């Protein structure tokens, strides 16, 4: 009887909050320094490719600086709590921008890039198990805690094989319309551990519109000073 109970306990999925917490740490650690390439595709138009270096600390602090192409080098986005700033190197000026603004003109919002953690903004419930892209996944329903976040509802699929890799996320508006969806791919060892290295965000509103974020290098658990994530630091330039 006790062994049956033990098997049942072992087979039971972890709580939804725990799945979400593990999934959001599967791509980037609590603190991380990374480089990535962003490719913005629009139907019938040439692609825009930007490379950048990023710093992340916890759920609230994020900084990204463009490193390529040369004409955009030095442009930077900073997220600190609920605020986002843009640094324009040609004007040497820091400009406060809306948090729901799309990041770098692609399909990711600033919130998607800087707040890869969702647990602070959303209440998670486990909605079952499904197979997505040939992967057994837990399906999480995430409901926004308030209306300050970019999406009212997110459906989130996380692998059940113990890796907790996120596989897919669908983003919905308050009216229930699906805005876009995220898929992860190209699991590879980078920064000393295996993780998805390619994030693709596709627009549900414009067929063929998509943005790829490809991680080129990641260092987890790097000590980062909070002062790096301030508009005062941004004002100093690179």
């Amino acid at each position, binding site marked *: 009887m006790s062994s049956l109970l033990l098997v049942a306990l072992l087979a039971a999925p972890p709580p939804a909050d725990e799945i979400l917490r593990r999934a959001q740490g599967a791509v980037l650690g609590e603190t991380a320094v990374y480089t990535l390439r962003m490719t913005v595709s629009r139907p019938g138009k040439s692609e825009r490719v930007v490379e950048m270096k990023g710093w992340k600390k916890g759920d609230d602090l994020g900084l990204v600086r463009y490193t390529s*192409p*040369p004409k955009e080098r*030095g442009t930077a986005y900073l997220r600190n*709590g609920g605020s986002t700033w843009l640094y324009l190197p040609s004007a040497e000026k820091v400009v*406060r921008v809306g948090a729901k603004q799309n990041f770098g003109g692609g399909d990711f919002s600033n919130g998607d890039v800087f707040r890869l953690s969702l647990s602070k903004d959303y209440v998670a419930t486990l909605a079952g198990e499904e197979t997505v892209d040939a992967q057994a996944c837990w399906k999480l329903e995430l409901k926004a805690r308030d209306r300050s976040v970019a999406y009212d509802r997110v459906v989130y699929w996380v692998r059940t094989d113990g890796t907790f890799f996120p596989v897919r996320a669908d983003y919905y508006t308050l009216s229930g319309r699906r805005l876009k969806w995220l898929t992860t791919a190209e699991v590879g060892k980078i920064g000393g551990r295996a993780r998805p290295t390619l994030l693709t965000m596709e627009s549900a509103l414009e067929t063929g519109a998509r943005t790829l974020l490809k991680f080129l290098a990641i260092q987890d658990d790097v000590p980062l000073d909070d*002062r790096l*994530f301030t508009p*005062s630091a941004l004002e100093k*330039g*690179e």
Partner: protein
Amino acid sequence: VRAAAWTVAGLLVAGPAGAGSREIQVGFEEFHYATGETALNRGNVLGLDDKEDLLRATLGYKESQGSLRLVFRGFVEKRLDTDVDTDWTTREAYAQYGFGDGLSVRIGKQRVSWGSGFAWNPTSRLEPPKNPLNPSLEQQGALAVRTDWIPTAWAGVILVAAESEVVSRDAPLDAPSRTRRTGAVRARLLVRDTDLAVVFSGGRNQRTLLGLDVGRTFGPVSAHAEATTYRGAELPPARDDQRFSRLVAGLLWTRDQTSVSAEYFYNGEGYSQDELDLYLADLDSAYRHSIDPALPPPIQSLEGQRYRALAAVPYSGGLGLRQHYLQAAWSRGTSSGTWTAALRGVLALSDGGTALTPGLTWSPTGHLTANLDAILLFGPDDSEYGMSPLRSALQTRVKVIW
């Protein structure tokens, strides 16, 4: 300047950037101006041709090695169809060194771009003034020592000692200038997702001012307000016993590659219609005396100098002749970033003058950008824009970046 040029040349040939980064920009700028005889250019005392052309070759260099950053930007300018010598101008030439995340020092000619306002920054009296006809031009810096100190994650302090000219040099105007020396401190705080900054500055040939800067985001819109108060006017007459204030308040909305902004500017020391009439009468008097054969030549010469000084007033860093302005700007880029169109308009609410600046940017590769901008001025003859000796402009700028 020569030393800076040789330093840059030496660094350019010194080899690869190693572990740091290096950026080199080479460009050409051509400014074609249509000029006219207006209240500020009676009898064409500025000596402008009907069509003026300025040709510039620009050079930019930036190198980062660890905590050290070296920046140089400058241009060689030739006023075409004149015998005026080719002129070299250094926009920026500075070295910056960072001591960890909390402290950095920058020395040399540099921009000090503080203040949340887009078109007007009443809290910044450190740099040479923007060309009021085209504030989007790359600005010249001030010779300065700047220290950025970030004691905590919610506060930053900037200390600056600077020396700069008080007349805009980005226009073919032969305006007399003078040097101002400034000491300034700006304390920036981040409190509950709100930007707050307090500014205090003062020095020689300028007013001592206290400023406040506030910024906050409301959903997709960011809002800002930048205000100052000071005793005595920057525009003549000095009005030393009066206290003035300036306020810029604006909104910015961005989505994808589109941005829209609007900004209102209140210039407390700006001229009322009566004060403008007095200024115009003074201009007229100085001009008439300068050409009056009944007066001795030395007096004519002095009056000529007085006229030139008065004519330079709109370009002497006063931020505007009148009291109320409204600016709106729109830009939209293609998803690939190849094309960007922009339109900026300033409406001088006090006199009905309007300055429109449509522009187009073409950037076929990540290394090349080409801009074509026009400046179009409208308004009554005695309006601020109607008085400008530069009636319209077409600006072409090409930049190659590595």
